């Protein structure tokens, strides 16, 4: 512990405040009683698929494409997820299969 307990507490409270501001802001701007404007409804409809795209790329942000394993474990495991999901469309199976393949690749094949 490098900070004093009071400094630690204040840092934790600051981080919490910032995080919770980002979560509450839209709900405070557009309270339940009022109908949000059309553009907000439109964003509410198109943002989920767009943000899912963002999160997928975000997960791959630290992959080193030019060195190390060149992203092969990530791409192979993702291909397994896509293939399993196209085949059975079972969320748990797709995720378990992809994760198992990835663990095998990084622990054994590309270790």
């Amino acid at each position: 512990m490098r900070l004093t307990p009071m400094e630690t507490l204040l840092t934790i409270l600051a981080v919490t405040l910032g995080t919770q501001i980002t979560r509450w802001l839209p709900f405070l701007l557009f309270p339940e009683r009022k109908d949000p404007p059309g553009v907000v409804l439109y964003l509410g409809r198109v943002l989920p698929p767009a943000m899912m795209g963002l999160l997928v790329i975000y997960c791959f942000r630290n992959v080193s494409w030019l060195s190390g394993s060149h992203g092969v474990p990530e791409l192979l495991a993702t291909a397994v997820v896509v293939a399993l999901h196209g085949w059975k469309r079972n969320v748990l199976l797709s995720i378990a299969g992809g994760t198992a393949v990835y663990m095998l690749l990084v622990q054994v094949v590309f270790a």
Partner: protein
Amino acid sequence: MDGTKSGFSRALKAAFPATVPVMTGYLCLGFAYGVLMADAGYGVGWALLLSVICYAGSMEFVTVSLLTAAFDPISALLMSIMVNARHSFYGLSMLGKYRGTGWARPFLIFSLTDETFSLVSTLELPEGVERRDFYFWISLLNYGYWLLGSAAGALAGGVLPFDSTGMDFALTALFVVLFLEQWQRRGNRPAGLIGLGCTALSLLLFGADNLVIPAMILLLLVLLGGRRKLCA
């Protein structure tokens, strides 16, 4: 409206299987976070406090480094707003679905993480289950997994009975699967591609550490600019 006890437990039964991938990911990542806190010299009490009141995976990892640097709460506040700005987009998307959720609503808003958002925004509401109860259980279960992982990591301080390297891929796989679920609906495809494209471009231009904010701005501009086309 089924406000009975049986309706509530039926919602739990429907919600639990949906949260299993998050359980895997959160237990692993929460554990890793707890270990880092322990390594930095902070006990289980501190590790849990941050998880209980802040509850934001990636930001908690950043906080570990803030707690080992010089004391600077203003930077900590600004950084947490930057790192979690995407949560405001989640809120915008959930205005409608979280409407009229009554007593559960404050907790639903408090606990809207990446993973919880991806589930509540993508999954179809199962037949015979009340919306409020379904979202409440998904949110509460995920919260519980994260707290459990954090506490276990801080207590164990780095000793795992098996090699879990790569297990955090479960969350990547979860996002890929939920992207595919969104993709099933034809109308979602352009927006999905815009999300992938803008973020990939932002990664190329700004690098791994600074990609989120530019990506959000970029995809917001493209989505707003293409409103006419995307609505058609």
